[in-house]
C-alpha cells in the first residue's frame, strides 16, 4: 500500500505543479475558461485520489477549495487576485500536507482552518445577497467518503453542481423510451442524448422498430427508443439528472453494468448472458440455441427474437469490451513512472554496449572478414538507435522548471515590492533530466539576482521613463549539441566601475591591470566577489555567482554575461544536452589517447618546429593574424618521449578567448561514453572523466575550460 501512496504523492506533486501553472496563467487572463477548468480538474483529482489512498485531511481540504472553484467555473464567482492568492496558499498547504504524510498535525490542521475561513470570507464577500453560496466548514478531523452514488447535495456543495465524480469509470446501461407525445413539452430527445455523449464514452443504439411507413406515420409522435451505453466517472444520479425534466414523459432506467474500478479483465460476458440479463430471452432458450452449430445471434433471430434486441446486445458487448480496453490502456500504457535510478542503470548499460560495439567494429576491420563486418555494421545501426531512444527517455522539457520560476518571481516581487513580469519561451526544449535538476539552483540564484539587484523599484523605473513593471525573460533554445538558456532583465544593468572597484578592493585584480569591458563583467563570477548583501539574500545557501559558474561548468557548460547600463543584463548559459554520452575528438600524445569535447573544439592547426622557434620560446602562435596562446599537453600531463616533427594544435574556444592545446596527433571524432573517475581521482582538475576506446584502452576526457585557466593563469 505504501508504494501506492508513494505513487499518489508523486502524481499529486505533478498535479500541484500543473495547478500552480494554471493559476499563474489565470493571473494574466482571469477569464480563460480552459485554465479555470484545468484548475478545477486538478483540485478534483487531488481530492478524489487523496480520499482513495486514505489522505483524508487532504481530501477534505481540497473539497473546500473545489467547492469555491466550482462557483468560479459556473461563472457565479469571478476570479481575482485575492482568490488566486488563496488558491496558491491552498496549493502550498496541500503540498505541506503531502510532505507531512498527509496527516495534519496540530499546526497544519490549524492552518487548514485559517485557509478555509479565508475562503469563506472571500466567498461571502463576493456573493452578497440572498443566494449567497455559503460553504459549510468541514472540520479537518471529519472524514468523508467519496464513494459511489455520492449524492450531489451533501456537505454543503452548492445547489446546481452535478455532484462528485467517482474515482473510477462505470459503464451504465441507460434505457430511454420517450412517450410518443414527448415533443409536446418542447423536449428534443437528441439534445439529451448529446448531453450523455458529453459525459463519457457513449454507444447509442436506437430502436427504430416502431417507425412505420410514411403513409401511416404521425410526424408529431416520437417512436424511437434508445439503449445508451455510457462509460463515465459520473454517478448514477448525475446521469439521471440529464433526464430530470422529462421524468413524466419517458420511461427511464439506469443500471450500472460494468464497474471499471480495477483494471483486471473481468469475465467477458457472452451474448446470451447479455440478452438474458436484458430480459429479451431466458437462459434456457440461449442454451438451446447455443447447442446448434450456428452463430447464436443468427439462431436466436431465426427463433423469433427481434433482430434489434440482438443488435443492441452485441453493441453492449462491444462497448463494454472497448471501454475496458480503454481504461486499461489509460491506466497501463499512457505513461509509466520509472525511478530515475533505473534509467541511469539503463544508460550505463547502453554505454557499455556502445563501447563494446566500437571494439567490435575495430576487430572486424582488423580481421577483414566480410561476414563479421556486415554483422558489426548491422549491430552498429541498432546500437545507435538504442542509444538515441535511451537518451530520449531521459529528456525532459524545460517547461516544468520554468513554471517553478514563475512562482519564484511572483513571490519575490511581492516580497520586494517590485512589479515583475516574467516571460518564458522555449519551454518545450528538452534536456537531460539530471542536467535539469542540477540547473535548478543556479537558475534560482540568477533569477533572484535579477529581481533583487537587476530590476529597479517601480518609482525608480518611472523616474527613468521605463514601464513601472520590469520584465524578466527566460528562454531556452537548442543550439547544436547544447541548449542555450538566456535570462534577461530590463533593469539598471551592471555598473562596471563598481564591479572593478570591488574586485580591486578584494584583490581579485591587480590595481593597474587593464581589463576589457567584458572581462570586468565576468569578474562577478570570480570566487570571493559575492557581496555581503547577496549572501544574506540567499541566506542558507551561501551561493555566489562563482558557485553558479562552477556548477554550470561541472555540467560541461559555460556562463557569459552582457550588460548595458540602463537597458538591462543578459546571462547566457550554454549547457550540453546530456551528460552521459558526448561527441569527442580523440587525440594522441605519445600513443596515449585523450578526448576533447568536440563541442568546445574550434579548429585544428599544425605546429611545426619552425613555428615553435619563431616566437623565442613564448608559447604563442600567429593564427591567421590573431595571437593564440598554447599549452603543450605533454607538459601538463608529464608525458615523456620525443616530440614529433609536426605537432597538432587543437584550438578550443572558451569565454576567455581561444586557447590552443598541443598534441602529437589528432585521431578523429568519436562517440564518447563518459565514465566517472574513481573516488581517488575525482577531484583532479582539468579532467572531467574517462572513456573506454575501441581497443579497450582508457582515454581521459579533458575539461578544457579548467585546463585553460590552469595552464594560462594570467592573460594580458
Amino acid at each position, binding site marked *: 500500500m505504501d508504494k501506492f501512496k508513494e505513487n499518489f504523492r508523486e502524481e499529486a506533486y505533478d498535479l500541484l505543479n500543473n495547478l500552480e501553472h494554471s493559476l499563474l496563467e489565470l493571473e494574466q487572463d482571469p477569464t480563460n475558461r480552459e485554465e479555470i477548468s484545468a484548475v478545477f480538474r486538478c483540485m478534483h483529482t487531488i481530492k478524489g485520489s487523496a480520499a482513495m489512498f486514505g489522505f483524508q485531511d487532504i481530501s477534505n481540504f481540497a473539497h473546500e477549495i473545489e467547492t469555491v472553484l466550482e462557483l468560479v467555473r459556473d461563472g457565479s464567482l469571478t476570479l481575482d487576485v485575492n482568490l488566486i492568492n488563496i488558491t496558491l496558499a491552498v496549493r502550498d498547504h496541500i503540498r505541506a500536507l503531502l510532505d507531512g504524510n498527509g496527516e495534519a498535525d496540530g499546526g497544519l490542521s490549524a492552518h487548514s482552518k485559517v485557509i478555509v475561513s479565508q475562503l469563506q470570507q472571500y466567498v461571502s464577500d463576493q456573493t452578497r445577497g440572498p443566494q449567497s453560496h455559503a460553504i459549510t466548514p468541514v472540520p479537518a478531523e471529519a472524514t468523508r467518503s467519496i464513494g459511489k452514488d455520492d449524492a450531489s447535495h451533501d456537505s454543503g456543495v452548492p445547489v446546481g453542481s452535478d455532484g462528485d465524480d467517482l474515482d473510477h469509470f462505470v459503464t451504465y446501461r441507460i434505457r430511454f423510451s420517450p412517450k410518443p407525445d414527448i415533443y409536446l413539452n418542447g423536449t428534443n430527445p437528441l439534445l439529451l*442524448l448529446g448531453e450523455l455523449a458529453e459525459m463519457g464514452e457513449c454507444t447509442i443504439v*436506437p430502436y427504430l422498430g416502431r417507425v412505420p*411507413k410514411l403513409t401511416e406515420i404521425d*410526424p408529431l409522435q416520437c417512436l424511437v427508443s434508445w439503449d445508451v451505453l455510457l462509460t463515465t466517472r459520473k454517478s448514477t444520479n448525475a446521469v439521471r439528472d440529464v433526464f430530470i425534466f422529462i421524468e413524466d414523459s419517458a420511461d427511464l432506467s439506469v443500471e450500472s453494468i460494468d464497474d471499471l474500478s480495477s483494471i483486471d479483465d473481468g469475465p467477458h460476458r457472452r451474448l446470451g448472458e447479455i440478452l438474458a440479463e436484458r430480459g429479451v430471452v431466458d437462459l434456457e432458450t440461449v442454451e438451446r440455441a447455443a447447442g446448434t452449430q450456428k452463430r447464436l*445471434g443468427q439462431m436466436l433471430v431465426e427463433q423469433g427474437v427481434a433482430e434489434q434486441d440482438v443488435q443492441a446486445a452485441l453493441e453492449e458487448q462491444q462497448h463494454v469490451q472497448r471501454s475496458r480496453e480503454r481504461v486499461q490502456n489509460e491506466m497501463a500504457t499512457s505513461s509509466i513512472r520509472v525511478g530515475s535510478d533505473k534509467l541511469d542503470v539503463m544508460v550505463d548499460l547502453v554505454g557499455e554496449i556502445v563501447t563494446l560495439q566500437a571494439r567490435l567494429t575495430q576487430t572486424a576491420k582488423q580481421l577483414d572478414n566480410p561476414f563479421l563486418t556486415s554483422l558489426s555494421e548491422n549491430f552498429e545501426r541498432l546500437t545507435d538507435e538504442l542509444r538515441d531512444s535511451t537518451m530520449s527517455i531521459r529528456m525532459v522539457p524545460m517547461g516544468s522548471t520554468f513554471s517553478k520560476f514563475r512562482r519564484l518571481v511572483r513571490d519575490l516581487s511581492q516580497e520586494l515590492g517590485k512589479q515583475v513580469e516574467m516571460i518564458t519561451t522555449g519551454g518545450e526544449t528538452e534536456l537531460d533530466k539530471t542536467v535539469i535538476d542540477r540547473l535548478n539552483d543556479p537558475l534560482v540564484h540568477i533569477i533572484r539576482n535579477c529581481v533583487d539587484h537587476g530590476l529597479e523599484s517601480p518609482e525608480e523605473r518611472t523616474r527613468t521613463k521605463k514601464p513601472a513593471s520590469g520584465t524578466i525573460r527566460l528562454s531556452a533554445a537548442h543550439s547544436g549539441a547544447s541548449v542555450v538558456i538566456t535570462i534577461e532583465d530590463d533593469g539598471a544593468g551592471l555598473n562596471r566601475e563598481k564591479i572593478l572597484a570591488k574586485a580591486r578592493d578584494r584583490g581579485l585584480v591587480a590595481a593597474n591591470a587593464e581589463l576589457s569591458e567584458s572581462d570586468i563583467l565576468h569578474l562577478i563570477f570570480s570566487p570571493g566577489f559575492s557581496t555581503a548583501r547577496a549572501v544574506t539574500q540567499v541566506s542558507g545557501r551561501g551561493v555566489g555567482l562563482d558557485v553558479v559558474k562552477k556548477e554550470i561548468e561541472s555540467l560541461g557548460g559555460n556562463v557569459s554575461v552582457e550588460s548595458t547600463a540602463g537597458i538591462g543584463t543578459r546571462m547566457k548559459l550554454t549547457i550540453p544536452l546530456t551528460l552521459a554520452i558526448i561527441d569527442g575528438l580523440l587525440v594522441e600524445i605519445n600513443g596515449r589517447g585523450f578526448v576533447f569535447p568536440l563541442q568546445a573544439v574550434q579548429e585544428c592547426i599544425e605546429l611545426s618546429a619552425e613555428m615553435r622557434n619563431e616566437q623565442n620560446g613564448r608559447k604563442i602562435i600567429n593564427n591567421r593574424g590573431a595571437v593564440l596562446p598554447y599549452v603543450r599537453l605533454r607538459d601538463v600531463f608529464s608525458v615523456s618521449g620525443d616530440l614529433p616533427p609536426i605537432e597538432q594544435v587543437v584550438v578550443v574556444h572558451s569565454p576567455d578567448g581561444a586557447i590552443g592545446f598541443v598534441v602529437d596527433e589528432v585521431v578523429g571524432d568519436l562517440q564518447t561514453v563518459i565514465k566517472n573517475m574513481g573516488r581517488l581521482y575525482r577531484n583532479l582538475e582539468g579532467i572531467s572523466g574517462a572513456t573506454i576506446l575501441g581497443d579497450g584502452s582508457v582515454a581521459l576526457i579533458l575539461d578544457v575550460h579548467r585546463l585553460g585557466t590552469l595552464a594560462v593563469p594570467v592573460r594580458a
Partner: protein
Amino acid sequence: MTENGSLKVITLDRRVTIDRAESLREVLLDAVANADSLLVNLSHVEVIDLTAIHLLYAAKRQARSEKKRFEFTGTVPEAVREALEHGGFCKRAPDDGPDLGSALLDFERPAADSATDRSPKKQGVRHG
C-alpha cells in the same frame, strides 16, 4: 429495385424541424407516390430534429415496400451529422450524401447477417 423510370430530387429546406414536419411528410409522400427513384438532398439543412429523421426512416420504409430507390445526394452538413450521431443512427456520419444511406443504422436493409459475424475487438464496424 427499379433503376429506370422517373427520378425525383427532394431538396430539404434550411430548417427541417417539428413545425415543418407535416409539410415534409406531404412532400415525401408525394415524391414516393410519383417517382421510382428518390434522391434527398440535405446540403442546405442547418437545423434538423428527430421528427425529420423519423420521416426519413418512414419514407425509406415506404420506398422499400414499394420497391423504389431512396437515396441521398449532395453533402451532409455538420448539423445533420451531429443529429444523426447523437441519436445513434450513425456511428460516424459521412460527409457525402451518397454514402449516408449505407451508414444509417437499419436503413439500407434490416440488420441481420452482420449481427452474426463480428469480432468484438474491431471498432466502428458497420452493421446497418
